[in-house]
């Protein structure tokens, strides 16, 4: 059991009031998580003591900054069970990590008619990069359908594998439905069919243990800001041989070994993929964030979220005319509950909840095709993290009743 009150004390923002007398109830961690003091301090400390550009400098600060940046890489790599820190590339976020794979591995290895398998529950970040590449290279995109209970149709997936795809790219946890996908199974079947597998871990890595070696993932993309770290930095894990053989991504400083007027030789992995001055202080913050999460314990975090989510589903189901999207039980489901409230637009729901200090998300959550599937223009989403208490769910339920009263529903 997590000592949630002690955890909450680590997050300064959670003690603020949204308006005088109205405390913040933050239920939007699937969009971005809040940051503990240790993360904020680590970046503050970096700027106060060590700030310098990395990798080329010979002075003390440059050496310390380089060490801090590379140490952060090692911590992030260890957090996801990467066998080698060099297999973790720092990117801006999950989106950039996926674009990196599309633009380097994809462009170098895919040709007209090749098949990529995605799913119907992808975030736009694991959809649009492939649409762009497909348009450029005349690739064929196929989609694993979702059942009405919000889970992937794995029988259909097996049939799609007969198309001999080159890549299967899928989310480990839906940001709308909360569905946790059977990643290990999807990956091993992809491999059996001769495809490589990319896992969008944006929602998974922050919320439960994810180990790339256990999953046998070829690529894993995730963002620091959803896991107690800063914005502006994310990571791409890649299989060693794939990273070695991929062409560089962006061109510029740090990604080169040697530059001539008319050509260059690329640097080694991971630097080959990190052109220009990276987000150094943010990397340090990312390292502090994974340390913080490890100290709390990812198993304990997952268990806590499951408890809060089960309670939320139970309470929300009591509300007449409220319809929950996705899996009907909290098994294999992360800390996300999306719902529609008959005839009341999610924007109205979110706005009225905000008047009670409750922060939820309203919209399509960057998953327009998924909403189309459910016949909804948008939905309301509450999402939980290690610092959420069950009594915040009670406030949410009271808030929804207030919405219903105002709309006379």
């Amino acid at each position, binding site marked *: 059991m997590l000592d949630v009150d002690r955890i909450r004390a680590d997050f300064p923002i959670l003690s603020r009031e949204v308006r005088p007398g109205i405390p913040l109830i933050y239920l939007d961690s699937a969009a971005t998580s809040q940051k503990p003091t240790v993360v904020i301090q680590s970046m503050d400390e970096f700027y106060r003591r060590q700030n310098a550009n990395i990798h080329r400098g010979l002075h003390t600060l440059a050496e310390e900054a380089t060490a801090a940046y590379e140490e952060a890489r090692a911590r992030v790599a260890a957090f996801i069970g990467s066998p080698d820190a060099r297999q973790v590339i720092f990117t801006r976020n999950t989106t950039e990590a996926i674009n990196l794979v599309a633009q380097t591995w994809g462009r170098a290895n895919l040709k007209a008619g090749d098949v990529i398998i995605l799913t119907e529950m992808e975030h736009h970040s694991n959809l649009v990069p492939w649409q762009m590449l497909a348009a450029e290279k005349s690739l064929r995109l196929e989609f694993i359908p979702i059942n009405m209970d919000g889970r992937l149709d794995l029988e259909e997936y097996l049939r799609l594998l007969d198309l001999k795809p080159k890549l299967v790219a899928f989310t480990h946890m839906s940001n709308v439905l909360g569905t946790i996908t059977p990643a290990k199974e999807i990956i091993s079947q992809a491999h059996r069919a001769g495809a490589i597998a990319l896992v969008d871990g944006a929602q998974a890595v922050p919320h439960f243990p994810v180990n790339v070696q256990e999953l046998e993932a070829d690529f894993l993309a995730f963002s620091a800001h959803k896991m107690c770290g800063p914005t502006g930095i994310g990571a791409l894990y890649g299989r060693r041989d794939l990273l070695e053989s991929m062409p560089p991504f962006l061109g510029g400083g740090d990604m080169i070994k040697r530059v001539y007027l008319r050509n260059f030789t690329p640097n080694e992995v991971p630097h080959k993929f990190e052109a220009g001055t990276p987000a150094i202080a943010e990397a340090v913050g990312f390292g502090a964030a994974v340390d913080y999460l490890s100290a709390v314990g990812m198993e304990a975090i997952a268990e806590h979220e499951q408890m809060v989510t089960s309670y939320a589903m139970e309470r929300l189901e009591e509300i007449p005319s409220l319809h929950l999207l996705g899996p009907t039980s909290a098994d294999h489901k992360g800390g996300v509950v999306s719902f529609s409230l008959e005839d*009341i*637009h999610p924007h109205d729901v979110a706005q009225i909840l905000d*008047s009670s200090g409750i922060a939820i998300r309203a919209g399509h959550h960057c998953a327009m095709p998924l909403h189309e599937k459910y016949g909804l*223009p948008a939905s309301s989403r509450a999402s939980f993290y290690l610092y959420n208490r069950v009594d915040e769910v009670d406030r949410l339920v009271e808030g929804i009743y207030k919405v219903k009263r105002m709309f*006379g529903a």
Partner: protein
Amino acid sequence: MDDFYREVIIDRYKNPLHRGVLEPHDITFEDENPLCGDHIRIDLTLDEQGRVSKAVFNGHGCAISQASADLLLDTVVGKTVDEIKALQKQDVLDLLGIELGPVRLKCALLPLKVLKAGVYGLGEADDSLVEG
């Protein structure tokens, strides 16, 4: 903040006065706000003097967008096309009587955007129609 949903807004959302479709019509236009799925279509008929004789809207979306359409059409009948072209963002905000953040402002201004794109005979509604 609860003032946000003034009674008139909820009332017009639930019991609009100008909901409908005009066939035939002289002017029609529709557009949506893809971020939230608000959708508005406005149909107008004009009399011999070129003044609006009938104005109705159709669509779906949040209370702000739908109430804004209904309140806006209160003011449209009898106006000339030029008078409609002169309508501004502030006119809509005065009708709604509330302060709006940047996201909800888009909901509130969608009906005016649709109306103006229609009277200008444009192929596409542009945000510049409701700026200033």
